[in-house]
């Protein structure tokens, strides 16, 4: 029960913090002070209180976009184990629902973007769906590998099964897996090197350009949803990359939170030291990730 | 009598060569008329006299010797053609082919399981040789008239074979054969007349509008 409460509190409260940490890290690299860690929270609160401007061309689809996206991400978040703790809801096949919920949210985000009739948002939408489509197989290769290792078909068991021992017995495949998943994480959340969330150069953006016309609370939902997506996918990544077990329930929660903070720092570091890829290189990197995860699966299935 | 019949058959075969080698229409028509008359005489030579036989003889001579040549002649006159020009295969090669076919006919007839009483006679080789000559004319000549002549020669060849059976066969088939020959030629004659009217020529090589591209 307590675990469930902690789970929900974490998924509801922690995501914006990651954005703050990433920002701070990047600022540190750039030699700036940077915005406070809690800046994303301030942004959200402020957005929720602002009025909105709607384009004349938009319809209900535009308004439904952020709502459905947020709802789908929230439901998906209940399926993911955080650290060594199983998710509150867990059943056979939930990993597929998990993946498809992100599909649903993507559908609505892009639909909302297209609803504005702006060619820039259309461009962003096209990139978003194309790149995520290439990410899908990677995710499923990884899921199969995990399922094979854990002999289980629930996300919680698959992800909590990993332990330091596995890193010793199946190190190579785990390494490939982690690499692939990290690329997936960056790609899905539109981080550098795939996308630069901070620039506003429309021609090179992916996610940001899709939400150009959103404003007020809706934009808040989008930011919040995106942060939550980063958190959820990050949680999956951390479960595999850092299967540290303390033995105590509270300790595990602690390890998890620390792990997530480390992950945010890691992303910040990557964003600071890497440049954004050229657009035509992105599919190549994504396919490379797919190949990595396919190799991982091959090694595990063998 | 058999030997006289054989001599007549040799004559028939010689007439075949005349037709194969001649380019003149009038000669060909006359030759085919003579061949018809000779054939008309043959049944009388090989079989004992009967009224039925006499009827057949008269009928054949009338049809093959007089009516049909007259019809063709008429058509030729109307269309004013005298010669077969540009045969598919030249006259000399045709003659050589005719000779080869005639020889083959003799060889082939040797091997056929004939009834013993027909073994010695020339009927079968003559029949086959005439048949083949008919084929040859049909396949080498392009004029409609020449082809009719070829058809007549073919019919003559068949008729010679039929002579082996005049005794055994009912009148009906004989008469039918004759009738159909007559009707066929009669209709053909009409058609040829129409052809000459339409095309002002009876060169069947002109009759080539109907074909696949």
């Amino acid at each position: 029960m307590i675990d469930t409460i902690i789970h929900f509190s974490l998924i509801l409260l922690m995501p914006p913090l990651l954005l703050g940490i990433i920002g701070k890290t990047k600022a540190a690299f750039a030699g700036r002070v940077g915005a406070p860690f809690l800046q994303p929270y301030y942004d959200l609160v402020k957005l929720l209180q602002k009025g909105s401007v709607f384009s004349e061309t938009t319809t209900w689809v535009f308004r439904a976009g952020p709502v459905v996206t947020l709802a789908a991400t929230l439901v998906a978040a209940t399926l993911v184990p955080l650290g060594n703790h199983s998710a509150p809801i867990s059943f056979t096949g939930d990993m597929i629902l998990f993946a498809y919920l992100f599909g649903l949210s993507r559908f609505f985000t892009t639909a909302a973007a297209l609803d504005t009739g702006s060619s820039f948002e259309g461009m962003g939408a096209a990139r978003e769906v194309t790149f995520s489509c290439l990410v899908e197989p990677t995710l499923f290769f990884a899921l199969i590998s995990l399922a094979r290792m854990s002999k289980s078909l629930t996300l919680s068991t698959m992800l909590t099964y990993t332990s330091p021992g596995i890193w010793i017995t199946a190190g190579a495949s785990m390494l490939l897996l982690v690499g692939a998943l990290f690329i997936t994480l960056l790609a899905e959340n539109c981080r550098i090197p795939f996308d630069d969330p901070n620039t506003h150069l429309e021609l090179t953006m992916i996610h940001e350009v899709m939400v150009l016309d959103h404003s007020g609370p809706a934009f808040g939902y989008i930011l919040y949803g995106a942060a939550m997506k980063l958190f959820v996918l990050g949680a999956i990544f951390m479960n595999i990359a850092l299967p540290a077990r303390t033995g105590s329930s509270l300790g595990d929660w602690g390890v998890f939170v620390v792990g997530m903070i480390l992950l945010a720092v890691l992303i910040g570091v990557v964003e600071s030291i890497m440049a954004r890829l050229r657009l035509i290189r992105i599919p190549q990197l994504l396919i490379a990730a797919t190949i990595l995860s396919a190799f991982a699966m091959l090694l595990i299935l063998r | 009598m058999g030997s006289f019949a054989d001599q007549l058959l040799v004559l028939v075969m010689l007439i075949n060569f005349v037709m194969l080698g001649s380019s003149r229409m009038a000669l060909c028509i006359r030759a085919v008329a003579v061949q018809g008359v000779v054939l008309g005489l043959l049944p009388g030579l090989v079989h004992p006299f009967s009224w039925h036989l006499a009827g057949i003889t008269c009928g054949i001579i009338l049809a093959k010797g007089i009516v049909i040549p007259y019809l063709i002649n008429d058509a030729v006159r109307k269309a004013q053609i005298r010669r077969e020009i540009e045969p598919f295969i030249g006259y000399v090669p045709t003659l050589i082919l005719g000779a080869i076919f005639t020889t083959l006919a003799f060889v082939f007839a040797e091997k056929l399981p004939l009834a013993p009483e027909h073994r010695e006679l020339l009927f079968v080789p003559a029949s086959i040789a005439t048949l083949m000559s008919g084929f040859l004319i049909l396949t080498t000549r392009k004029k409609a008239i020449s082809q009719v002549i070829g058809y007549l020669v073919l019919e003559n060849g068949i008729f010679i074979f039929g002579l082996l059976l005049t005794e055994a066969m009912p009148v009906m088939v004989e008469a039918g054969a004759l009738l159909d020959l007559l009707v066929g030629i009669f209709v053909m004659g009409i058609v040829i007349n129409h052809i000459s009217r339409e095309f002002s020529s009876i060169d069947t090589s002109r009759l080539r509008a109907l074909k696949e591209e």
Partner: protein
Amino acid sequence: MSYDTSFHSDIYGMHTHTESFMAAGWQTTDYLFAGMVASVVLFGISGLPGLFIKKPGWGQLIATGICVIAALLGTGTAVQTVVTGSSTAGYLIDWHLPFGPCEFSADPLSALFLTPLFLASGCCAVYAVAYWPAREHPGSEKKLTFFFGLLSAAMALVVLARNGVVLLIAWEIMALSAFFLLTTDQRDPDVQRAGMVYLIATHIGTMALFILFAMLRGTTASFAFPVPHSLSPDLGVATVILVTALIGFGAKAGIMPLHIWLPSAHANAPSHVSAMMSGVMLKIGVYGIIRTVSFFSLPPAWLGWLILCLGGVSALSGIALASAQRDIKRLLACSSIENIGIVFIGLGMALIGIQTNTPLLAAFGLTGCFIHILNHALFKPLLFLGAGAIIHATGTREIDRMGGLSRRLPRTAPLFLAGSLAICGLPPLNGFIGELFLYLGAFNDAISSPLPALALVAPLLALVGGIAVITFIKLFGTIFLGSPRSPEAAHAHEPPLAMLAPMSLFALFCLIAGICGQLLLRLVTPAVASYAQLPPAIIDRMESSVPLASFTLLNLSLLLLILAIGLFYTRQTVKLPCATAATWGCGYLAPTARMQYTGTSFAEMASNLFAPFVTVSRSGPSLSGPLPAAARFCYATTESILDRVLIPVFQAIGLAFSYLRRMQHGQMHLYMLYIFATLFVLMMWRH
């Protein structure tokens, strides 16, 4: 539940060799079967009155009435048959031809295919009243109505037939009815071409079926279907039978590379006909393959893998092709290829499962296959009917000329959205359930099997799903969102109720089936069990291992959450100031609707990635000089196999034939030579 092998002897025992039916005692199943047969007959005759009624419109109304009654009766009895899971008695009609008695019967498998058939037929018939009204199409309406009923009846007969020749007859009536329906608008050159390609393709398929049933007869000495699982798969004949079945039935199902007829046929038919062809007729092809395989005691090992590979190729290339299309119906047609591919993947998994004696794999594969068949028969008609409404409203099939229709067609838009979500397999709609079973089959295999190559199905499906999302966002977005790209789109109008009602019904079913996956499972399990001869324990195991209740719960909570956030959002926006303005044009001051991202540009990136599957022809001017004149740029996807392979081959054959045709040169003396040569050869042959 093992297959009831006494079923055949039952029939023969029950019926004497006469033309009358059902001599002995009636049972519930008899009533069910009678209901289905009555429904078939009603469909078949539905168009007849219209042929004799002069006044326009009445015939169509009568036909629709009959179709609705037939659909209600048929769907009810078929569902009942499926659920009870028992083989019903059959009708045996002695028709004196040398093909054995004409036999009809329904088992759960047949009834499973009949359910969507009847449902879709009824809905499409209602739709036709508004879509193709007699008043506006006096020339073609009668033909359309008549053949529509005939198509439905013939498809049902194919499924009910238990004799090869009867099946062939019903099959060809179906194919020809579809041809006539497809060429309803026969003056259009595109329709002509589509009709021609369709007719030729279907005929070649029928030729394969000719061989199939002839071989079957050679094996069993009868045209009647053999007792299920009675033939040995090891004979050489078995290979021929199965290959011809794959070609003949597969051509109708539209699997790659036999799909050549499909895109243009579906695109050019009237929309409700496309809905029937895609939603139902393709499945009849799948049925044929499934039925043929059931004759064998075990499917041969190569078959499952072959079907799996065909399915994979079809799914991937189908959706890749779809993503590049600009014609709304062509896009939907290509997506049908994808869906059939998914069905084949399920079937292939099931056959591999049966062959390797892995019952759970068989159960998952077959369940996924069947559920996807049902699902596709719900959302594809919905989408085609929606496409019909859109074409009706805008007068074009080109999606790049549409845009902003969700304002003009506020009721059609959510229905179409539901269809799009469902076809992408997104929760909470029904498409997800079928794919779930396939994924689980693959995952299960990955966990337990020693040779888990099947696991590759999962990433493949994921990729296909990803492209499907691209395709359908493109479709929905380009048509309904943004601002109108042409005057036609700007003045579009909402379709009448008769068109909306069937679409709403389909959408409702999609949602219900998506939330309550148990309903779908309940429909298919009897067929799965009887077909794969699975013991109840395996079915139970499968059912218990897939907690559909949890999915229901999560789907419901997703909906609730959307509702809650939506309400919250609405209340917030009410409280807060709200303004409207033009879409931000990134600084450009005079944006026009034509500057929007079109569907083509939306999918261009993806179709570049799938270049091996999608060939695109671009033709444009080379711009030169400082002020180039107005120019035109053309972008079209080509039908690779048809345009690049088949048509050149046909042309080459045609050329060869044209040389051979010179034999008919019109020269008599050579004709004579032919005769003598024939004579000569025959004489030589003899001696």
